């Protein structure tokens, strides 16, 4: 009994590998090899331009520990991850629940809330850059119009508000994605459950906690995991809105890696930062990958 099964596995395995080979070649050539190259360069002092370099071992990693901007960037990343995951997910869920109900103009509202998600990030950065302009921007103009002059700020021009201001743009941009996934997930919850709960005297709030939330559990995994991974990749919005400034106030690991590799001619050090970002991203994505694997296995 065992012999034919083994033969089948081997035969099937070879065919599978043959079919996978072209994709694997591309994968290794364009992802694995460059990644391993970068890992190697993180142990060197390569300037990113010259033909030669020296091996410095773990020197770049030791330098990271002493780099105050790395510490600041890591804290900024953490704040960014918490705020730009929690707020869009909660807001997206709320919008999905509301728009799944009997609101008038639902298609239009869905379009409105999802539109920012399809805009190019550079455009989003420009739009919010204009809105935040201290003298001519709409935000300060609105505050002044209602007598709140004291709240008008140079939003992107001071350390105390710059990171928060960019996070507002990120929230505006990202709220549509969880909303869309939750809306899709809500369609899969049987209306019969709500009808039965209503008959049994359950209120809206009870229905939400005992029917809607459990029904959205698979969606929660996807939404939260993808949002967390996305938040660790933050780069373009910060780069385009503040260029990491004022000073280094809005530097995150991604931008600091970029500055070192491409602007400071410290490619070795920059790739060491990239390695750390990647390790952290993998660590936080493991629960998501595990959940997806379980699903596929089932």
């Amino acid at each position, binding site marked *: 009994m065992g012999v034919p099964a083994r033969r089948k596995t081997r035969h099937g395995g070879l065919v599978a590998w043959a079919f996978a080979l072209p994709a694997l070649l591309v994968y290794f050539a364009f992802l694995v090899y460059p990644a391993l190259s970068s890992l190697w360069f993180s142990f060197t002092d390569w300037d990113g331009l010259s033909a030669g370099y020296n091996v410095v071992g773990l020197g770049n990693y030791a330098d990271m520990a002493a780099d105050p901007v790395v510490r600041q960037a890591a804290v900024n990343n953490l704040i960014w991850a918490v705020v730009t995951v929690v707020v869009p997910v909660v807001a997206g869920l709320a919008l999905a629940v509301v728009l799944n109900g009997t609101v008038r103009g639902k298609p239009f509202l869905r379009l409105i809330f999802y539109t920012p998600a399809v805009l190019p990030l550079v455009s989003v950065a420009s739009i919010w850059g204009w809105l935040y302009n*201290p003298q001519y921007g709409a935000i300060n103009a609105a505050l002044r119009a209602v007598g709140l002059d004291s709240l008008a700020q140079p939003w992107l021009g001071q350390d105390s508000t710059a990171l928060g201001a960019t996070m507002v743009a990120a929230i505006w941009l990202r709220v549509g994605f969880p909303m869309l996934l939750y809306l899709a997930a809500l369609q899969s919850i049987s209306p019969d459950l709500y009808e039965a709960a209503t008959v049994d005297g359950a209120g809206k709030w009870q229905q939400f906690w005992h029917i809607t939330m459990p029904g959205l559990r698979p969606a929660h995994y996807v939404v939260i995991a993808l949002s967390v991974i996305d938040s660790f990749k933050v780069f373009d919005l910060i780069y385009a809105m503040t260029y990491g400034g*004022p000073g280094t106030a809005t530097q995150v690991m991604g931008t600091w890696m970029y500055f070192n590799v491409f602007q400071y001619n410290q490619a070795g050090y920059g790739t060491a930062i990239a390695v750390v970002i990647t*390790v952290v*991203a993998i660590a936080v994505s493991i629960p998501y990958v595990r959940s997806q694997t379980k699903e596929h296995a089932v």
Partner: protein
Amino acid sequence: MNDNELSRRRFLSLGGAAALAAGLAACTGTGSSDTGSTGGPGTGAKTLRLFTYEDNSTVDLLKAQVKAFDQKNGTTTTVDSLPGSGAAVYPDKLRTELLGGKGPDVWRIWGGQIGAPFVKAKQSMDLSAYYTKFGWDSKLSPAAIEGMTFGGVKGGVPFIGAGIGGWYSKAAFSKAGISAPPKTYGELEEVNAKLVAAGITPASLGGKYGWDIMRLFEYLLEVSAGPDLHDKLLTGAESWDRPEVVTAFTNFKKWQDQKWLPEGAVGLDPADVENWYVQGKAAYTMTGAWTEAQGIQAGGKKSDDFGVFQLPTDQTPARHSGFVEGYMVNAKSGNPDMAAALIDFLVQVDTIKALKITNAVVTGAEPDQATLPLSYEWAQGPGKQPFYTIQDQALPKKQADQYFAVQSDVLQGKTSPADAAKKMQDVIKAWDKD
């Protein structure tokens, strides 16, 4: 081990590898000497590629001139431009192209510490032999050539030497009761005070990327330190922890506190702010002669309604900040002779005039007085004065960013002028140590 576990483990390992690869692949490169193979640039004896950062208003002029060169020499030259990218982005693109082995044969670049890494890494060619061949030493300004010489290597050919001056709206000055541009630093402060009193923002400067705001600080440093000390500070020959630097930072803060700068200037994009003096939102800006064609005239305004003055330093010689731009040749170009010939063509007087360059360093290529009267006025007056290198070219990018971070902290009141001077000394000392 059951199938599910195996599947999960495989999936995890592949997923991990994918994430690792995706994260790292973005910043990989190659340190081998194979970079920039000769298969890229100029593979054919008659094929060239020129990379520049001309904007839409000038790139067609350049293409027309390059076409004329091609017709004369039987070459085919491609012009690629990354318009509006500035020194913050363009060198990155260039670096990536060079490392990818498809670098251009000729590229435009700023002098000082922006161009230096390409020479240091031997990505650009030593052009000394072509200087002799084409006689560039006698055709081009010696100061500009110095700006394209790195560690004794003539790594580039300058064609622009831009000086930074005060470009102002006559209407704004008139509204504030100002009859003439300032001649001393004290008068400039008086001008600022009058403009604020008239409800006009004096200087339209934005600090994103450091550009503009750093122009102001380096000017204030020239005022308080004077030419000799200023130059020594930039090379680390003198300590920054001194009264002259503290004075410069104190004045710098004063410009913001007195509202002589736009609100939140540190976070404003210079591209948005610089033309406010043309649009009637501010009185003047600190910029180069390109603003006449690209700001005033492109904005549909007449040059007669604006003026230009040298920012008064009360020092001798009266210097202004300036910078050099030029061309470099790829060390791995397949056709360096033709690449050099292209550069020689581009620095001819007739070509410079056809390109409407207002601040060329080529003898005999002064701006046309009829079409660009303010640029001509600048070239004939302040433009002839010596200049100090703008500080994002005088310092490597990393130190320039740290310098700007210190300036940003001063403007936000997070660092006192005295502490800022100490911090700058630390920055320069660390650079020296590196």
